[in-house]
């Protein structure tokens, strides 16, 4: 690291997973200047994935998911105060309390928030929740402890499905309403969505797909909901799990390429400005970032995944203190997990970047399997359900651009290896929005949907 980069002032906006890991990496790499972390939540960095799992199951209090530190960061923490803008010329971050924080380099790690219920009056009904923060989780957990008559979950993406799973485990009646044809279809495609639907039903979820909640009913207090098929659901708790919105509004005047799809950056996490010119002092990491990935045709992708936040934060931090030729690209193969209904779902690659799938190991019937995704004859993703120990093999195939379908020969491949259409719907038909947004051009899967001879 050159002396100049070792010193100076670095400001990190967003004091959660990505912000924390970036701060630690900066110090690890020898940054000796001043470091400021700004976060609008009042809590020190905590972990979100347990909020929809351990916390809702009642195993862990909502306040008990604090992240461990890898090392001391010797930072100034400004918590409970939002950043409201950036002056890229004067190199200052504006805070909601009127303060201005000067920087030499800035990291944007403001993540996402829960997409709110579109009708504010209905959203304000007592009993209507979203789940993104520990405060959200505390409120929802308290209601679940009180034993509601029925919980309505709106949207069957990962978060919605995990919430439904936790409720059923606690024997709380649940109705899940999803606009798309099945749970998780937006992230995993049709084959695994069928497995997911079966898990919901086997665990006693009242699952309603292909319908929408049109209104939430109640008088101060939620009593139920009306659905697009004319039916109604009685519920005293509703959780809005309609996906996430990227926290970029505060950058509206910044001149950066920031918008609803995230803050666009290059493979080295440097933000673009609105003219598409890469900046050299503003970096982006985590859920809020939108970046090109070489494994996926250099399309701009945004990943709402824990692992991406960690890996990208490390690359961003490294590049913030490294001179040009020593900078690294963020190339990590995307990975994520979800656990629901006692099943461990793990993914490598980008399942939505696919036109076909095969069941490579195990069986759909047992819900223990590995599904492999391909796009134009190349393996692009693999998802395991209760088969995590095999996933390394497929990660290697993705990294080496191995041909799809994978070579036969697996001992536990019970089904014949017949590629099926991957059936990833257009995100517009989903309730919850995609957790992986391929924001460039979508692969044209229609080409392979019509296959002669099936």
């Amino acid at each position, binding site marked *: 690291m050159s002396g100049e980069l070792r010193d100076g002032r670095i400001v990190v906006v967003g004091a959660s997973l990505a912000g924390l890991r970036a701060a630690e990496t900066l110090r690890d790499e020898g940054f000796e200047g001043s470091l400021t972390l700004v976060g609008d939540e009042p809590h020190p960095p905590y972990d979100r994935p347990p909020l929809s799992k351990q916390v809702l199951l009642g195993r862990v209090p909502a306040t008990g998911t604090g992240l461990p530190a890898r090392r001391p960061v010797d930072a100034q923490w400004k918590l409970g105060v939002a950043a409201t803008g950036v002056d890229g010329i004067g190199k200052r971050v504006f805070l909601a309390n009127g303060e201005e924080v000067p920087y030499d380099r800035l990291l944007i790690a403001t993540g996402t928030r829960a997409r709110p219920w579109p009708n504010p009056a209905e959203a304000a009904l007592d009993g209507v929740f979203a789940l993104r923060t520990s405060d959200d989780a505390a409120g929802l957990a308290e209601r679940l402890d009180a034993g509601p008559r029925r919980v309505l979950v709106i949207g069957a993406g990962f978060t919605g499905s995990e919430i439904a799973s936790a409720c059923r485990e606690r024997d709380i009646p649940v109705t899940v309403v999803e606009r798309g044809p099945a749970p998780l279809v937006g992230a995993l495609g049709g084959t695994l969505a069928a497995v997911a639907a079966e898990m919901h039903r086997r665990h006693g979820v009242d699952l309603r797909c292909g319908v929408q909640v049109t209104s939430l009913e109640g008088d101060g207090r939620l009593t139920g909901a009306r659905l697009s098929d004319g039916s109604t659901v009685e519920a005293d708790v509703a959780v809005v799990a309609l996906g996430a919105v990227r926290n970029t509004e505060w950058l509206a005047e910044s001149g950066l390429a920031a918008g609803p799809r995230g803050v666009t950056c290059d493979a080295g996490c440097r933000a673009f400005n609105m003219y598409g010119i890469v900046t050299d002092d503003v970096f982006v990491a985590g859920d809020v970032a939108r970046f090109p990935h070489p494994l996926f045709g250099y399309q701009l992708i945004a990943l709402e995944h824990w692992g991406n936040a960690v890996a990208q934060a490390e690359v961003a931090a490294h590049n913030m203190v490294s001179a040009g030729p020593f900078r690294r690209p963020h190339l990590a193969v995307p990975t994520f997990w979800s656990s629901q209904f006692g099943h461990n779902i793990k993914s490598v690659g980008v399942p939505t970047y696919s036109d076909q799938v095969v069941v490579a190991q195990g069986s759909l019937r047992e819900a223990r399997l590995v599904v492999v995704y391909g796009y134009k004859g190349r393996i692009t993703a693999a998802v395991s359900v209760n088969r995590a120990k095999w996933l390394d*093999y497929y990660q290697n195939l993705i990294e080496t651009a191995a041909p799809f379908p994978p070579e036969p*020969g697996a001992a536990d491949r019970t089904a014949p290896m017949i590629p099926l259409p991957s059936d990833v719907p257009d995100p517009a038909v989903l309730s919850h929005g995609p957790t992986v947004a391929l924001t460039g051009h979508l692969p044209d899967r229609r080409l392979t949907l019509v296959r002669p001879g099936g």
Partner: protein
Amino acid sequence: MAADTLFRRITDYASRPDPYPLYAELRESKVAPQDDGSYLVGTYHEITALLHDPRISSDRRHRSDPEEARLAAELAPSFIGLDDPEHDRLRRTTMRPFGPPHTPGRVDAMHGEIVRIADELVAGLRGRQRVDIVDDFAYPLPVTVICRLLGVPREDEPKFRGWSDAIVGGLDLNPDQDPTERTQAATEARRAMGVYLGGLAEGRRGKPSDDLLSAFVNDQDPAGGLNRIELMVTSVLLLVAGHETTVNLITNGMLTLLRRPDQLELLRREPALMPRAVEELLRFEPPVQMLPQRTPLVDVEVAGVTVPKGAPLILVLASGSRDPRRFRDPDRFDPRRTDNQHLGFGSGVHSCFGAPLARLEAQIALTALLRTLDGLRLVDDPPPYRRSPVLRGPRHLLVEHDGAGV
């Protein structure tokens, strides 16, 4: 050509005290075809890739050599020698009374008992001028533990010791010996031990006690449990795997530390380092040196070499754990090493079933020995080794006290 004779040199008994230079030679080529048709792999990344490759079978019945396949088929394999989904089903069933998710507290609850056993054994060493770490400590400890766990009377040890020796002998890989004979002897021993353990289990039917044999016959398992044959071969696997390996870990541990008095002192001073030190031992002197059971189900390409369907594929774990492309300063024993994803317990779906128990036993055993014994020196270095190149460890480890007594 060196590669042709490398396997012979590794399995040669004269190499037992220090096979590591041969492993360095092995790593020069990522895959080393041998003149007997087998393929040796000794590099870390290739081994881990193969352990996670679903096309690599653990079932010897898939060997293309008809004699080998026939021998393997004589007695039903236990789950260490089966592939998914059968392996998975049996392993989960066997796990039910042993570990999570159904019995999460069993190993943790054995902690106090293992400490007591270790303390008793150590007490027996006090005041003696000369001690054999193997016979007096490292062997009786895991035998006692696995007997308690399974529910096998400790007094029967002389009975099963012979069978166990023959079973381990079946893993001898010397290509110059007739494999039929030693495999046959091992099969006979497995059969006899299976009948013995099956009998013990039957005796518990309807009379539940707190051990695995009882659980196998008495507990309700929605997946159907173990049938009679499965129960026998699984119990044999547990009894043998449960002590023939751990004895070597404890002994290799003492040997390694006695050769490095500064590290020994360090661990005596900082017992909190022991968990890490045991991981380092599993990397540096692993009790299971290689996995001789693997067979590709189709032609598989490894680092540019095609390993044909049905060929013996031997994964030399001990070599992978010393691969300089993975570990910094691999030939150094460093009990503080943090980046240590060693291959001591294998990896992937067959990774060691008893690993948490073995870890605890070794941590407790070495802590007890270090705490009690002071001023020891090795009588022979290197010590005499057991025959097997697979389950490698000293046959005896004689130590003497400098002064009046231990």
